[in-house]
C-alpha cells in the first residue's frame, strides 16, 4: 500500500472509530444497546483477534503449514503460552521474537 492509500485508510478507520465513540453520547441517553447485542459483542475481541493472528502463524503462501519447520507457528505458540502464564506484554514479545530469531538463525 502506498502512502496515499495508507492516508485514505487512516482517515476512514478514524472516521469509523469516532462514529462509534460519539454514537450514543450524541444521542444523549435516548437509546440503549439491547442486552443480547452487548452479550454477543463481549466476544468480539477474542474472535476478531484470533481470526487475524492464526493465519499469520499458520499460512505460508496461502497453504496451511502445521509442520515443525514453520518457525512463526512455533514462536507464536510459545508466545501464547507465555501470555497465558505471565500476562506480560513485553515478556510475550521478547519470547516470541527471540524464538523466531533463534529458529531462523539455526534452521533458516
Amino acid at each position: 500500500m502506498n502512502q496515499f492509500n495508507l492516508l485514505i485508510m487512516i482517515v476512514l478507520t478514524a472516521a469509523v472509530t469516532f462514529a462509534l465513540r460519539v454514537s450514543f453520547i450524541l444521542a444523549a441517553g435516548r437509546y440503549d444497546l439491547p442486552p443480547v447485542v452487548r452479550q454477543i459483542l463481549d466476544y468480539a475481541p477474542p474472535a476478531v483477534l484470533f481470526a487475524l493472528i492464526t493465519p499469520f502463524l499458520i499460512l505460508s503462501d496461502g497453504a496451511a503449514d502445521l509442520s515443525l519447520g514453520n518457525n512463526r507457528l512455533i514462536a507464536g505458540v510459545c508466545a501464547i503460552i507465555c501470555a497465558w502464564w505471565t500476562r506480560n506484554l513485553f515478556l510475550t514479545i521478547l519470547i516470541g521474537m527471540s524464538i523466531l530469531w533463534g529458529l531462523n538463525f539455526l534452521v533458516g
Partner: protein
Amino acid sequence: MSVAREEFLLGAKHLTSVLPAAIPFGMLMGVVAVDIGFWPSTAVLNSLLVYAGTAQLAAMQLVDNGAALPIIILTVLVINLRMMMYSASLSHRFRELSLKWKLFVSFVLTDQAFAFTWARYESEPDLPLERMKWYYAGSAAPLGVIWVISTTVGAWFGTRIPESWELDFAIPLMLIAMVVPNIKSLASLTAAVVSGVLSIVAAGMPLNLGLVVAAVVGMLAGFAEEKFFHPQSREEESVESV
C-alpha cells in the same frame, strides 16, 4: 484550588498507573508501522486520528497481508464496537454536557478512560457532572498526548531498524499479549478457537472475507456456548444494570 483543576489532576494521577504499559506500547506501534512501510509522519497521524491501539495493530496486520481496504475498515469497525458499548454506558451520565464537551469526550474515549470513569461512578454515584467531566478530561486527554509522542519516538527508532529483523512479527505477538490474558471463560475460549480454525479454513475466500466470516461465527459460537451451558451466569449483572 478550583474544582476543575482538582478533578483534572486527580484523573491525571490515576492515569499514571497505565503509563508503564502505554508508553512502550505506543513506541512499538511506531516501530512496526515504519517496518511495514508507513512513513514516520503517517504513523504518527494514525495514532493521532485513530487513537485505538488494538484497531491500529489489526489494520497494520492487514496492510502487511495486502488485504483490501473495505476489509480493513470492517475489521476496525468490529474491533471498536466496544467503543459503542462504552458510549452507550456513558451517554446517560453525560447527557447534559455541551456539544463541544460531547465531541471532546468521544474523541478521547478509550478502554482506560471508560474504566476510570466507570470506577469513579461506582464509588461515588452522585458525583456532579461539573466534577465528573474534569475528572474524565484528566484521566483521558493526557494519554492521547503521550500516545502520539511515544508513537513519534518509536517511528524515529523504526527508521533505524533493518528489515531482516522481521519486526512485523511483533504485530501478532502484541495482539496475542493483549487478547490471551483476557480469555477467562470457556465461552471466550470457544470464540477464539472457532474463529481461529475458521480463519484458516476460509482463508481462500476473496478479499480476505474469510477473516470477517471467521470473526462473526466465532462471536456467535462464544455467545452460544454461554447461552447453552451457563444460562444463569449473567443474572446478577443484569439486575445490577437495571
